[in-house]
């Protein structure tokens, strides 16, 4: 069975501080992992996916198969990063996403 766990419901950091949003998953095969973000009053949108190894808006995420984790990191948080972040898993390209419950990130000045 697929499961995505985001242990933190809310994460509050100061502007300029490092931020790490945790994501752990369980899946027997080789899944594809994603981070989606939803800014206030906007649609859910893709932030990054592990296969592309990109850095988007200063965020990075490394897939650790040994720890079955895909934590999202940014060295210096900005106020505009305040949003709801969802970690998601897909068993293969084109298949539906299995989302975690989300972490609300609040960056305060």
């Amino acid at each position: 069975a697929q499961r995505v766990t985001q242990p933190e419901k809310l994460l509050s950091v100061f502007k300029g501080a490092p931020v790490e949003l945790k994501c752990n998953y369980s899946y027997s095969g080789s899944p594809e992992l994603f981070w989606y973000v939803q800014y206030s009053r906007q649609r859910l949108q893709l932030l990054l996916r592990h296969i592309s190894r990109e850095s988007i808006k200063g965020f990075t995420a490394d897939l650790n198969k040994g720890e079955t984790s895909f934590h999202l990191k940014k060295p210096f948080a900005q106020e505009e990063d305040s949003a709801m972040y969802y970690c998601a898993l897909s068993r293969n390209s084109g298949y539906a996403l299995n989302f975690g419950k989300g972490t609300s990130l609040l960056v305060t000045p």
Partner: protein
Amino acid sequence: EAGVAQSPRYKIIEKRQSVAFWCNPISGHATLYWYQQILGQGPKLLIQFQNNGVVDDSQLPKDRFSAERLKGVDSTLKIQPAKLEDSAVYLCASSLGTMSTSYEQYFGPGTRLTVT
């Protein structure tokens, strides 16, 4: 390009009534998904279409929910009869297809359903 369109944006009904949601995916997108997002949870897949065929409806409560995608473009999701626990945001998403570079899912604004 225009994004995924959904209507209505908000709907309030009484339990045991029926309701229908409409989704228009991005032009040319072969795959369409309906997700249900209950407050405090992440989106959960209800049904996935590839063109007008169903790929996955394993989590669709088929005794009350139905969905169709005639002609492989627009889609309608129906609930009949609604229960209190159906109160949620219903999200539609679409993607180009199943090729590894084209499967990014684009989400609509969602329909917020309140069942009283």
